[in-house]
């Protein structure tokens, strides 16, 4: 008689294996859910908890005096700085005006980039002629950091609003145009053929089939584009600005006003995030069919 060989793994491996199993196979779903959808589940509570934990640790570190306020000011200091600048202003300009001017620059550049980029991107997707002409310049300048061509902007367009808005415009334009170009491909060829077989003209196919089906990609590209716009804001406001959140952050950093720097960063993030939420809301309203057919 041979020895009985245990088929059971040792206890520690079962525990680890049990924990690991969630990565190999998930539990059966509850009714109303779909099995195996990647990453499904609510995240709001977890996200709020993360933010709360982050602020708590931040507060703890500063309250215990582990880090000097010059490097990391306390959350309360940021808040009081926010109230201070909100009421008293920064370099004589109230906070809402800084924020308003920056937002005007970013959204102005964004609207301009969409107004030109979307039609041009669609034209690039539709016509080999247009694509052949515009693909090289866009692909050439797209990966260049805006700070690299900032001096050129100043030399060519001066230190006024034009070079600021243009710098932001360029950073938004490429992703929007390329997104619209790629979006042209999202219409199924059967949808296009169907339209033609119902007597559509080329223009009608563009208007009623290709444009609507490109809309999800265009909206995504716009979200990515405005993100690039905000990242370029500080660079743009390096150019002889006297107002704007980017200007505020830059000036404060030169005087080692860390609280103002962090407050400015949070204001930029808050505006950008609020706009992104708006875009997501628009996306749900305008393209509810996205990914469903």
């Amino acid at each position, binding site marked *: 008689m041979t020895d009985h060989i245990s088929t059971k793994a040792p206890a520690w491996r079962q525990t680890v294996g049990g924990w690991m199993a969630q990565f190999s196979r998930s539990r059966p779903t509850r009714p109303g859910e779909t099995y195996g959808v990647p990453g499904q589940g609510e995240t709001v509570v977890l996200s709020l908890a993360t933010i709360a934990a982050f602020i708590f640790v931040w507060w703890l570190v500063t309250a215990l005096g582990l880090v000097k306020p010059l490097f990391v000011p306390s959350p309360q200091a940021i808040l009081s700085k926010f109230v201070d600048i909100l009421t008293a202003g920064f370099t004589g300009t109230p906070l809402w005006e800084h924020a308003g001017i920056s937002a005007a620059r970013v959204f102005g550049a964004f609207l301009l980039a969409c107004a030109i980029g979307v039609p041009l991107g669609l034209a690039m997707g539709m016509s080999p002629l247009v694509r052949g002409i515009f693909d090289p310049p866009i692909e050439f300048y797209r990966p260049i950091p805006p700070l690299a061509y900032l001096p050129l902007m100043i030399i060519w367009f001066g230190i006024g609003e034009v070079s600021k808005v243009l710098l932001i415009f360029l950073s938004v334009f490429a992703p929007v145009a390329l997104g619209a170009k790629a979006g042209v491909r999202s219409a199924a060829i059967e949808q296009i053929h169907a339209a033609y*077989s*119902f007597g559509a003209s080329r223009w009608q196919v563009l208007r009623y089939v290709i444009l609507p089906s490109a809309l999800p990609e265009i909206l995504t590209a716009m979200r990515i584009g405005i993100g690039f716009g905000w990242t370029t804001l500080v660079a743009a406001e390096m150019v002889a600005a006297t107002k704007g959140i980017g200007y505020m952050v830059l000036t404060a950093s030169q005087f080692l006003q860390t609280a103002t720097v962090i407050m400015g960063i949070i204001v930029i993030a808050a505006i950008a995030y609020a706009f992104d939420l708006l875009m997501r809301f628009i996306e749900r309203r305008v393209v509810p069919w996205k990914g469903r057919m």
Partner: protein
Amino acid sequence: MALEISQASVEFPAANGRPPVEALRRVDLTIEPGDFTVALGASGCGKSTLLNLIAGFLAPSSGDIRLDGAAVEGPSADRSVVFQKHALLPWLNVIDNVAFGLKLQGTPKEQRYEVAEKFIGLLGLAGFEKSPVYSLSGGMQQRVGIARALTCDPKLLLMDEPLGALDALTRERAQELILRIWKDTGKSVFFITHSVEEALFMGTRLIVMSPRPGRIAHTFDLPFSQRFCDGEPARQIKASSDFVSLREEVLAIIFADEEEE
């Protein structure tokens, strides 16, 4: 009206190191008004190429295609297509999808909804006018696709395996529905399918195609769809001895083609 294809050949040029493909060789086909022509054949026999020729998506390498004596030069609303995958527009609801063809032709909104409503009723979609198409089942989506093609009032309805994606039960119901509509509207239909039973049941004429080069190998005149329209039950037709024997005959032809590969 009649669609006449005479001596049409299609040769796809060589590409990626692949030799040129003769997709269709000297095809002759006439579709008379009220004909229900079904094309059947092994994959690669040129069924879809033939449909693309008729639809005007593809120009023949040689030969010509005439509708009512006028050469076919591109797609047009007198030859509406129903696709295997419905190809509906998900941003439009059911009625706007059905009325889409009329919108393209510039028909005013009230009029096109009136026509669309008629075909929505005909295809059993009443009550779903405002539903988004992505919320419908596959069978209903396909019916929207058929209604959409019918609203254009085409002379010839081209159907490229319209029922291929449906389950067996829905498929049989859809077959009967299409036959009733065909009878009611008097349209000519060109219908592609992989199913021998479907082909025999639905067509007034069956063309069996063979691959390499794609060509029409056999033509049969079929009585079964007429018998269905005269009131004989579908199951009874499909179980009748002449149906079964013809099915075996056609299957033998197709299997012979498949085995040549």
